[in-house]
């Protein structure tokens, strides 16, 4: 141990400001880098999951629309048939 007391340690032989500035700035920058790297990894996964959800929703909507249109067409055809029958009779 190079220092006699805690206050001696924080004093850094008179260079406290510079030493703690260097160590503190490094700690802050590295912490920010680690946190942002981790959160962007998680965000990327969430983004992909969301896009996937949107795609399935769109696909289901398209499917629904197709079946509705089909039913609509069938109804129209039925109506036309009925019409033509009426004209004939």
């Amino acid at each position, binding site marked *: 141990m190079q220092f006699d007391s805690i206050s001696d*340690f924080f004093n850094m032989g008179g*260079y406290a400001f510079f030493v703690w500035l260097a160590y503190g700035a490094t700690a802050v*920058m590295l912490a920010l880098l680690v946190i942002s790297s981790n959160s962007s*990894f998680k965000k990327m*996964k969430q983004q*992909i999951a969301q896009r996937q959800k949107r795609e399935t929703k769109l696909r289901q909507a398209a499917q629904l629309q197709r079946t509705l249109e089909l039913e609509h067409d069938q109804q129209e055809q039925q109506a036309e048939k009925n019409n033509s029958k009426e004209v004939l009779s």
Partner: protein
Amino acid sequence: MWKWLHPYANPEVTYHFTGKILPWFVALTVITLSTGLVWALLFAPADYQQGDSFRIFYIHVPAASLSMGIYVGMAVAAFCSLIWQLKLADASAAAMAPVGAVFTAIALLTGSAWGKPMWGTWWIWDARLTSELILLFLYLGVIALHNAFEDKNLAGRAASILTLVGVINIPIIKYSVEWWNTLHQGSTVSKLGKPSMTIDMLWPFIFCFLGFALLVTTIICIRFRTEILARNSIRPWVRNLVILENK
């Protein structure tokens, strides 16, 4: 060797492999870095001329040499991605750039905080300091290019070219203290044969250097996996992965 390396060109294999080794890197980083920093701050002897301000050395030198090391790694990846069109090389270069930029900034800042008490100035336009500042701008340029295009392949190509042009700066930084008269001192550690440090200053340095190097590896690993996901988001394996994790 090619047979052994070949599967790692597959993003899925690499994604899972890096996921497996990541916790080991985290553990090793915590052990070596905390050992190194405690040793450097509490147990290493003070310098006979510089007193305790010398303890900045334990961050400054690893950060500076890693800032150059990461650049060389990025340049190798850029070369591979330009010549062999390796998509993973592109992803790894994109993962390395921000980490390198942060370490360059740390080297500059700690250098500044060391320069003020020792040289009497925060900053001087001397060869070593200026070339290191240019390295920071090169990193920022590479990051900007990676984000400038919607198409990741195009962005990767542009960034790779800038990276390779910027390699010229690395020997300039390395030898600036020998080629020009500068305020910056010459190297203390890498003198082969007789390092000009006592052994009880050298050991904490070795731990600090290893610790920072492992930290770099860990962060690049995390960012690399993010880049892999970003570039493969429509592939079935990524879809399955995301579905499995959201259950």
